[in-house]
Structures are given as structure tokens and as C-alpha cells.
């Protein structure tokens, strides 16, 4: 009993981020397997035979099984892995920086159509450049004003594709 508890304790002590990812992979495999009947349409059957060589469910099911098997093996292997997660050494300020840029990216994408590519790009590029620590007006001007103009012109004039125009444009 004491040995069993000690062994269980040592296994728990050896759990790491790889173990957590491995379990997530197993769960993902099970979820995919359960979703297959509801999320994969069946091809029509003619004269009792399928019209295609393999069922569209085959690959998702194989992938699901693969995830469960590989996830289980990965979990066992993870107990002897000694990798250090790259998130461990990150400072609080790094998380703040990442959060700020992520919010900026999402806002950029959300406002792209209503405000147009040029206006949003100028705003985001200037803001990130400034947030990153640049106080050089020439540098910020080149990044925040000239670069979006050049990219917009490149795509719309030279490559003849459309980017959302100015909000007041056609």
C-alpha cells in the first residue's frame, strides 16, 4: 500500500507540460471520433454500393484513433521527458506585450473593413512601433505612413486586387 502510494506520488511528480498536452491529444481524438457521425456527410448509395472508393468517415476516424494511440504513448513517454516549457521563463511584461499586440491584431482585423486598409494599417503600425519603444519620428513615419501606402499601392495598383478602401472611398 505504501509502495503503491509512493509510486503514484512519483508518477504525479513526473507529470509535466508534455503530459498535459498528451492528455489533450487523447481527448481531442475521442472528441473527433464522437463528432464523426454528426459532422461527416455520407455519400449517396447506388444499387447498394457506395459511389466512392472510401467513406469520407474513414480518414477522420483513422486520425481520431491515431490521436488516441499516439497521445497515450506520448503520455507515457512524457513521464521521462525533461523539457522546460518556453512559457516558464516569460516575464509578466512579456505577457503584457503579447496581450497588447494580440488585442491590436484583433482590432486591426475587426476594423479593416469599416475603416479601410490604409487607416487601420497606419494606426496599428504607428501604435506598435511606438509601443515597441521607438521615438524616432522618421522611423515611425516610414513604418506608420509610408509602408501602408506602398503596400496598398502595390496590391491595388500593380497587382490589381482589392483591399478595403478608405471609409469614404468607393
Amino acid at each position, binding site marked *: 500500500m505504501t509502495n503503491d502510494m509512493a509510486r503514484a506520488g512519483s508518477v504525479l511528480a513526473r507529470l509535466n*507540460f*508534455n503530459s498535459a*498536452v498528451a492528455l489533450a491529444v487523447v481527448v481531442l481524438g475521442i472528441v*473527433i471520433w464522437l463528432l464523426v457521425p454528426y*459532422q*461527416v*456527410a*455520407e*455519400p449517396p448509395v447506388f444499387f447498394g454500393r457506395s*459511389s*466512392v*472508393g*472510401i467513406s*469520407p468517415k474513414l*480518414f*477522420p476516424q483513422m*486520425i481520431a484513433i*491515431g*490521436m488516441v494511440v*499516439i497521445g497515450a*504513448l*506520448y503520455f507515457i*513517454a512524457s513521464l521521462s*521527458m525533461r*523539457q522546460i516549457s*518556453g*512559457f516558464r521563463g516569460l516575464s509578466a*511584461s*512579456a505577457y503584457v*506585450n*503579447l496581450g*497588447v*499586440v*494580440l488585442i491590436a*491584431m*484583433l482590432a486591426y*482585423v475587426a476594423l*479593416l*473593413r469599416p475603416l479601410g*486598409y490604409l487607416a487601420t*494599417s497606419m494606426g*496599428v*503600425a504607428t501604435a*506598435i512601433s511606438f*509601443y*515597441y*519603444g*521607438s521615438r524616432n519620428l522618421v522611423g515611425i513615419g516610414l*513604418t*506608420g505612413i509610408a*509602408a*501602408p501606402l506602398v*503596400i496598398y499601392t*502595390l*496590391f491595388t495598383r500593380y*497587382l*490589381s*486586387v482589392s*483591399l*478595403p478602401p478608405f471609409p469614404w472611398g468607393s
Partner: protein
Amino acid sequence: MMFDMLIDAMLMLMRLDILLMISGGLVLGMLVGALPGFTTVMAMAIVLPISFFLEPILGIPFLIGVYKGGIFGGSIPAILVNIPGTGASMATTLDGPAMTRKGQSRKALEIALVASVVGDFLSSFGTILIIGPIAMIALLIGPPEISAILLLSLMIIVMSSSGNFLKGMVMLLIGMFLATVGQDPVGAMVRFDFNFYPLQAGIDLLPLIIGLFAIPEILFAIEQRREAVVDPAHTKAQGERLRWSELMACGRTILRSTAIGGVIGMVPGMGQVVAAFIGYSAAKGASKHPETFGQGEIEGVAAPEAANNAVNGPTMVPLLTLGIPGDNITAILLGAFVAQGLRPGPQLFQDQGTLVYALLFSMLLACVLLLVIGYLLTPVFARVVTISKAYLVPLMLIFAVGGTYVYRSNPMDLYFMIGFGLFGYGARKLHFDLTPLVMGFILTPPLEYALAQSMLLSRGDLLGYLVGTRPIAVGILVLTPVLIFWLGYRQRKQRRVRP
């Protein structure tokens, strides 16, 4: 007939705009390659959409220019400041910085350039010679062999990806699952759309590639707002120039490394890093004075540079003859081909032979231009090492967003791009290699299609059909586990040898 095609292909390249696009690609590639922390793959992912809207003969050579410029550009910071600009130039840091410390940085940069160009040119020339016959052989193989080759390629990619085999398999399975979203390639049945309209057409390659390769670079760069800036004093090419006699003395090393890189380039998943280190080890092993390696030996720069650039041309062999990209860069090139309506595979040589050969010849042209541009601009790019990321990060972001949007004008692609970016960032933080994911995503639809065709051909008895009539497919399927076991055994042995 073949001769006429080659002449037509050469004539197709005689255009000023092609020269300008390749040159532009080379300059851009060298710029990004020279920036520590930014990769050639990222540069190619970001500029990929530009190629979609150009003629194939302009767009694809432009990407080839970025590719070649980036691989060479990575050697500049590797030599000057001991920071490899790209993974391919890691082996160059073994002797390059030592030459800089000895006041021979100009010589080191020049031998890197010449070795890169010679290695790349010869291997690309070899590629042009052998790719036609290989494509003709590939025409003879059918769906069962294609299925077996795709399976083998996926396994090689997983085995040769950096990190653990099981972690590589996890990434591969996730990539395969993402490829099943949307319509299946056989009967166009909808899968995993969750009644969400944008998912019905499936996940597009472009947001996946830009998301996985460009956004994580932005996130990694933004972690530290003010990073340590490289001392500008170290970013000058100094000392005497490369002498002809020194170049001739490196000739054998360059040729050996070219052969090594050429062979490695044809194997999916191996890539420049492996070639560079093997080229370096071979040069050291063959040298009469191996003790000078690591202390600023000129052959120690020439060997990895020739080897890593010699990989560039032969990676086109599996891509163009079988439609199998061997690494992330050729996966991006595959995206460019497909967007242009060119589906790589043996049939492409029959349908668009002149264009394919023109694209292959553009690799040779890019090598010649790299020599000229590299010679003129290397001192300029040496200064680039110090450009602040405060300007580069927003530039990358607005280019990535613009490029992703213009392809389908669908804002949902941008959300996918950010989602994949976050996933890529997290995966890299947790020591996952993203290459198997991308390869799984790209190769699953053709694998599923080829398997379905094989099933139809076998009339329900796949095993009997394979054993009875398809010995090559059976041979490849038998070879696959043997190769996995051998590669695994070799990796374990190498890990034991390393302290």
C-alpha cells in the same frame, strides 16, 4: 522535341521584368535572412500572395529569389555577429565568427557568397538534368504507389523533424485533421463544418502558412520590447578580400558539399540544416589540418554554405515530379503553383513542360544574379543586422494582413491567420516542430484521393490487389517501417554520442 522545349524555356526567360522580379526577390530574401530572428520561411509566407497575382513566370521566380537570397543572407549575421540569420546558417557560426575575430570578415563573407552560388548553381543544373527522366518514371506509377510514397514521405518528415517522434506525430495528426475540414477530396462530402459557412470550403493554405510562420515571429519579437542591439562596430565587412588561390583551395570542399547537399535536398524532410552540418563534418574529416576547424578555417565557411545552398535546387525534384514538398519552403512554393493553376506532379511536365523548365532555368538565373547582387550589397546588408524590430514588426504585420486578405477578400481568413499564429507560437514554446503539421495538411487530400482510387481499382480486395499486381507499392510499404526504425535507431545513437 525535348531540345525545342528547353530552347523555348530559355527564350521564355528573356524578359527584363523577370530579371527585376528575381532581383527584387533576392534583395528581399537577403534583407530578411540578414535579420537575426526572422526566417526565410516567414519572408516567403508573407510575400506568397504577391505571386498569386502575377504570371507564373514572374511570381514563382520571385519566390525562388526570396528563397535563395534568404538562405545566403542568413550567413551574414552568422559570420559577423555569431547569430545565424536562418537555421540553414547555423553551421556557418562554427568558423565564420572566428574569421571575423581574426579580422577576415570580408573574406568570410565572400567565400560564403561564392560557395553558396557554386553549390546552388551546380545542384540546380543537376536537378534540371535529372528531373525530366524522373518525371517520366513517375508517370508510370499509379494511385497505389502514390499512396505508398505519400505515406513514406510523411513518415520521413516526422522522423526528421526536430524534436521527439511522438510530438512530430501529434503535429502530423493535427495537420491531417485540419485538412479534413471542408469538402472531402473524393465525393465532396462536407466534413466538420459545424454549420458554419466559412468552414464549408475548408481551411485555406494561405492563412495557415502565414499564421504558422509569420505571426509567431511577430509574437516572439514582441516579447521583449527593447532587445539588446547588436554593436554596429561588428557589422562591417573588414580585412583583405578573398584571393583566387584561396578559392581554388576550397574547390574540392565546395564540390563535396554540393554533392552532399544535392542528395539531401532530394529527400523530403532533411533540409539545409542537416546538409550544412554534414558538409562541415565531411570537410573537417577530409582536411589535412582538421585542428584548424572551429578556429576561423576558410573551408569551415565554404563547406556548410555550399551544402545548405545545394539543397535548394534538388528540393524541386519531389515537389515537381510527385507533388511532395520536402520542407516548409517547398510547401509554400507548392501553394504558389496551385494558386497559379499548376498542380505539381508528373503530368505537369507533359502539360506545361516549357513553363516548368523555364522555372527551373530561373533558378540558374537567380544564382548568377545572387553572385552580382550579393557582391554589391553584402556590405549594405551587414548593416541591416542592427535595424530595430520596432519598425520591422509592424511592417510584417501589415504585410501579412494585406496579403492574407487580398487572396479571397474574406475577413474570416484573417481570424484563421491569427488563430494559427497563436497555435504556432504556443507549439513552438512547447518544443513542437510545425513542419509535420503543414505537411500533413498539404498531403492528406492527395493521400485520401489516391487511396480512394486504389480502392476502386482493387474492387474491394486491396491487399490481394497490392500483393498480386503492385510490387512497387508493396515494396515502399514494407520499406516504410524499416526506414522509420532505422532513422529512429540512428537518432537514438546520435543522442547517446552527444554529451
